[in-house]
């Protein structure tokens, strides 16, 4: 029960994280489309001014380039284009663009030239300030975004839920370290039948080899050796690299009167694992000290 609540909380947390990510993506996409819309409309103005030829070229324009390059390009064709714009002589413009070649880059120049400052000095200083402004803007964006996210998250989680999650996370590590103690406690306090039933249920849910191994141990202690053998095998099937499951299996076999079988199993495992514990157990069984 509590497990399920805990799981649900983990899920809320996971969802919050996921939606945070998607909000970021949406925001990014939004900004991108805004930027491309802006450049597109800019291109549009000129498209209306000039003839079809340019229109064809315009289709090749990549919005990204437009936003990155204007300042550098401005230098190259400052005046002529301004004149073109004023005169709006179609032929001239076509000529100009022919001079530059009909690729996209010419068009950037044409498109963005009017907004670019004319004097170099001024340009430099503006460059700097505009950079600053961009920086500020993004920072601003980030903070508002953060606010947005919080607002969004709370539609999934109430304040109290959020706080319990935080609490929960802090507690988790402590709980984890206490887990083993808990199991022992159950063992001591409750009757062993109860413990076995609880563990069986737990294993059914978790399919965790540790649980199966604990069950094997419990049965072994109760001298129910065929049960402990069975559970050790179950644990071993899930995780065959665990020494303990092999040992438990062999010890159960031994108690069931199958000493040779027990030794055989351990020896075959020892060949692979070279675990000193296994070696010790083999010796113990062989010298009948178990």
């Amino acid at each position, binding site marked *: 029960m509590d497990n399920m609540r805990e*799981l649900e909380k983990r*899920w809320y947390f996971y969802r919050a994280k996921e939606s945070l990510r998607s909000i970021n993506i949406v925001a990014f996409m939004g900004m991108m489309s805004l930027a491309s819309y802006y450049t597109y409309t800019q291109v549009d103005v000129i498209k209306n001014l000039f003839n079809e030829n340019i229109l064809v070229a315009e289709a090749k324009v990549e919005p990204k380039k437009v936003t990155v390059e204007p300042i550098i390009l401005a230098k190259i064709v400052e005046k002529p284009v301004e004149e073109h714009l004023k005169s709006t002589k179609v032929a001239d413009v076509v000529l100009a663009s022919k001079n530059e070649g009909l690729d996209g880059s010419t068009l950037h120049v044409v498109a963005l030239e009017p907004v670019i400052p004319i004097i170099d000095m001024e340009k430099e200083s503006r460059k700097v300030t505009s950079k600053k402004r961009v920086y500020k803007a993004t920072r601003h964006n980030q903070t508002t975004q953060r606010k947005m996210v919080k607002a969004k998250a709370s539609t999934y989680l109430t304040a109290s839920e959020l706080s319990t999650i935080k609490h929960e996370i802090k507690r988790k590590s402590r709980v984890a370290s206490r887990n083993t103690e808990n199991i022992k406690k159950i063992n001591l306090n409750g009757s062993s039948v109860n413990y076995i039933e609880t563990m069986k249920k737990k294993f059914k849910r978790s*399919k965790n080899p540790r649980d199966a191994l604990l069950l094997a141990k419990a049965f072994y202690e109760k001298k129910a050796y065929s049960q402990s053998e069975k559970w050790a095998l179950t644990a071993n099937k899930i995780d065959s690299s665990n020494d303990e499951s092999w040992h438990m299996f062999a010890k159960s076999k031994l108690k069931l009167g*199958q000493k*040779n079988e027990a030794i055989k199993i351990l020896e075959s495992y020892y060949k692979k694992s070279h675990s000193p514990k296994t070696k010790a157990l083999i010796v113990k069984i062989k010298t009948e000290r178990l």
Partner: protein
Amino acid sequence: MTSRFENVKNIFIDSVERNNYVELESAQHNYKLLEKSLDKPLKMILLFGKPGTGKSMLLNKLYHNLKESREIHYFDAPILSEKEFLRRVYEAITDKAVPNELRVNFDGLLRFCQKLKGEREIVFLLDECQLYSEALMEKIRLLSDTRVIKFVITLHKTENEDIIAKQHFKTRIWEVIELSNASEDDLYIYIQKKLIQKGFVEISNMIKKKHIRFIYTYTYGNFRESNKFLYTLFDIYEYFDENRPHKVSTEKLSKKFLEMTALKLGYIDG
């Protein structure tokens, strides 16, 4: 109050039982291969594949389908000591119990089998052969050389055992049938059929292709892993059905519960 989801989840507990067998195209294909190779003059047949790909399931089905029409014996759990193994083989062939104080002599058994040549053909199905010792496997091979006993064995491969196993078996005349995980389509059919076989038509209608895709991304179509996934999923359903029934819709699977399952099984972290 018990929820109907309790019965649903129990369908997905791992068990090798004939009446849980689902006829999938791939499983049927392998089954037919297996049946065919039983009639070939091969000595041994190897069912090979990763854990949870349905080897035991196939072996079990083979046994139950053929036990009326052939001499066939099935060792579902590995018998690790040689003494015990020989005894079980002898008892199966002769239908006589070996007294406790006696043991079966291997050479004697071999000779006994040779005498039966042409008279009988006995099939032994051995599951979980990765647990048999090298020495015992050698004896199994010698027994199969008599052509009186034919062994079908399953062996599960782990990454590094793979090569060893293949080298090991190449030297003999083996038929190797390799089993693999289900495809996405097969996984869909597997889950649908499993539910419908047990009468949960309504539940099977809840599961759509996109849910299968979700499950497949984590289980890669491994039957055991997929069983675990569905068991956990319906365990969550059971809890909500009992405690907060208004949150449970039977129209289609809940994305939330699917994600909770993936979280619980550690496929994603939250």
